[in-house]
């Protein structure tokens, strides 16, 4: 991404966006839109994910003056996305479980391995879709994104113990579902 022919540093863009520069924020949106959307898909499914990603990025813009850089911008945006998805989960639950299957294919692998991986990911995606919203959020944040139990608990408004128990149940459920399909 260039700005008047010159690559703008992320820190510079953040500073400008914090001061209300919407063009700078636009460049940040361009950089992070895929990662925000990916997390949204994993949390609420592809049907509602565009709404969650859009709302999360708008919330991020409103809150930019608060951003102090204690965490990386990507991490901060992910936290906002989790919160947005969590507050919209009632809307999400009104939708039928969405299938991640065709979307979870790693483009960096060769064609023969890609087919195998796609099958595994499709089964995994389908199993994750069958979890309750709470179990799904904990499993995605902890096992897919590697968040700590403390971070998961803080962002979802639950205790660490609840997060651990929910994760354990989610893993067992996913394994049971995979056991049925494999």
């Amino acid at each position: 991404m260039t700005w008047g022919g010159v690559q703008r540093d992320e820190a510079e863009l953040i500073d400008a966006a914090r001061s209300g520069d919407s063009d700078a924020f636009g460049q940040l949106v361009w950089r992070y839109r895929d990662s925000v959307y990916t997390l949204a898909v994993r949390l609420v499914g592809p049907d509602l994910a565009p709404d969650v990603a859009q709302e999360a990025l708008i919330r991020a813009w409103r809150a930019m003056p608060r951003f102090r850089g204690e965490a990386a911008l990507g991490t901060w945006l992910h936290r906002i996305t989790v919160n947005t998805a969590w507050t919209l989960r009632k809307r999400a639950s009104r939708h039928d479980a969405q299938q991640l299957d065709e979307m979870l294919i790693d483009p960096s692998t060769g064609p023969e391995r890609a087919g195998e991986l796609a099958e595994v990911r499709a089964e995994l995606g389908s199993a994750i879709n069958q979890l309750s919203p709470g179990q799904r959020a904990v499993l995605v944040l902890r096992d897919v994104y590697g968040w700590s139990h403390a971070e998961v608990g803080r962002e979802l408004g639950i205790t660490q113990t609840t997060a651990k128990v929910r994760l354990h149940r989610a893993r067992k459920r996913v394994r049971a579902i995979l056991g049925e399909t494999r």
Partner: protein
Amino acid sequence: MSNVICRLVSMVPADMPLNRVLEAHRDQCPRCQADVARSTGMSRELSAMGGETLRAPEGLATTVMSRLPEQDGSDPRRPLVVRIAVRYSVAAVIGVATVAALMARALSRRE
């Protein structure tokens, strides 16, 4: 009996320590070992998903940019309902305190 212990082992979350009896059982039980291997495999598959990025729909960025409201520095992780409730609760507390002060003043005058 072994079946019961296998179930006990499976009930303990992976990142919580097992007691000595359960640990010894898990280390020599083929069923528990297979269970551990399945869990490890699944964790590996899940964490591999973390490195993947899906392409956002065309127009997402444009839609966001066309809908930007005023920046207000609000906490993005606190839902709107909570923000409204907090705002009104502050007003309610101030109102109750004012009424209480007026009542106390009226009572003290009567005395």
